[in-house]
């Protein structure tokens, strides 16, 4: 198992966001789904120690994340936030940021290509890119760290339909071309179907369902179909 969360609670500004949450995320492509404010993004931040739970444990590959060096963990379990937040400078400066800190070598052009961007973007000013392009630079700079796990927080929520399709195609391409595990947070069940094999559904800070994506999402459809049939 990639991640195991047990009895995890987390409060923000006095408000409980996660409540005794238990969840498991296997190696491969997973998704965390649920309505806005249900605690999905918070859960993602606990996986690479951008935050620590108030109680409970988060285990990554059999070891409590609190026992790991947070900087090394974040280079291995890399989070791409919901909104682009690039540093000032060129696209190359952004892609180089993480590897330079870690002392890794990197190939900016292949990272850009993997993230669905033309390598010619390397010298472009990051402030002059569209939101969709910025989002893919965020992905490219995470890939430059050669992570084992990518955590993607609503990766298409700020994008229009065309850009969304392009980012989804990029993520599907990553699944096919790399061994990187992904955890995608989304409020869109259909997007979860397209991008993941396993799903955890969160409601009011608790995991209300989890398992292979077909089983979990089909279970939710069945009562709705039954209700429609009763009405007829």
């Amino acid at each position, binding site marked *: 198992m990639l991640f195991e969360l047990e009895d995890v609670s987390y409060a923000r500004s006095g408000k409980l966001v996660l409540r005794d949450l238990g969840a498991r995320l296997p190696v491969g492509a997973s998704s965390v789904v649920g309505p806005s404010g249900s605690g999905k993004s918070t859960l993602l931040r606990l996986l690479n120690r951008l935050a620590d739970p108030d109680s409970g444990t988060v285990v990554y590959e059999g070891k409590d994340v609190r026992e790991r060096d947070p900087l090394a963990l974040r280079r291995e379990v890399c989070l791409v*936030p919901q909104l682009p937040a690039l540093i000032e400078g060129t696209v190359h400066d952004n892609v180089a940021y993480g590897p330079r800190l870690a002392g890794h070598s990197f190939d900016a052009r292949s990272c850009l290509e993997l993230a669905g961007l033309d390598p010619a973007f390397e010298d472009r000013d990051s402030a002059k890119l569209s939101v969709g392009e910025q989002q893919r630079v965020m992905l490219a700079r995470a890939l430059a760290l050669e992570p084992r796990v990518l955590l993607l927080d609503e990766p298409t929520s700020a994008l229009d339909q065309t850009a969304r399709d392009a980012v989804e195609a990029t993520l599907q391409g990553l699944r096919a071309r790399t061994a990187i595990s992904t955890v995608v947070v989304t409020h869109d069940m259909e997007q979860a179907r397209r991008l993941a094999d396993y799903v955890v559904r969160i409601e009011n800070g608790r995991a209300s369902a989890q398992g292979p994506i077909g089983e979990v999402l089909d279970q939710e459809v069945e009562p709705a179909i039954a209700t429609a049939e009763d009405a007829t």
Partner: protein
Amino acid sequence: MTHLAAASSIHVTLGEVAAALALVAIAAIASRAWHAELEEDIGIAVFRSLVQLTAIGYVITLIFDQDSAVLVLALITVMVVFGAFTARNRAKCVPNAFWPLLIALAVAAAATLGLVIALGIFPATPRYLVPVGGMVIGNSMTSAAVALNRLGEDVHDQSRTIEATLALGATSSQAVTPLVQRSLRSGMITLVDSTKTTGLIFFPGTMVGMLLAGANPTDAVRLQLILLYVLLGAASIAALMAITLARRNFFTSAHQLREPPEP
């Protein structure tokens, strides 16, 4: 600097001080005419300056008469502590800002006063240490407070960018480096600009005071230059040290933002 004692031949009566209030009245009238609503603040400023300067005048007279290093040290300590409290109130966005500010002001005061004494610029007597100490601490406080306030606002406004860089394995220090550079600049720029324009656009207070008191203009200029350079150094030390110490307070030991951006 051997003959500054000559600058003490002027005598000012209370009546003359009161007459200067006529100009304050003009300021109050202008405020009322333009509905700037500053009359109350002007009144408070006049009253506080009268009380505070009169009180400190008596304290300085006592310290000069006693010629005691302990009393000088006590007065400078009090100024450092009050300076840190005042600066903390200006830098409200910075968690636990008091201790970084206290240390920054104490180090700036000790380093600059120690240096000017060690170099023989001023003798280690209350007549020099008290006024120079007051100027050093006052200017250091302003620079440190402005720098910290800017840092606090920037960390709040750019929490998404900071967290995004932490997510790439940056340490908390690395994540705020661009903000530290801007904050330090904010804390220093006013003093740097006023040093650049001194003598052209305005005459600084020490020089004016000495000239009014009858000192030789060459002595007045040289003393003013020494003070400008000392203040520039002290303000830099204070701003840099306050930022260096306070930037850690935004983060946990695991390089997490204490106040992360809203999801």
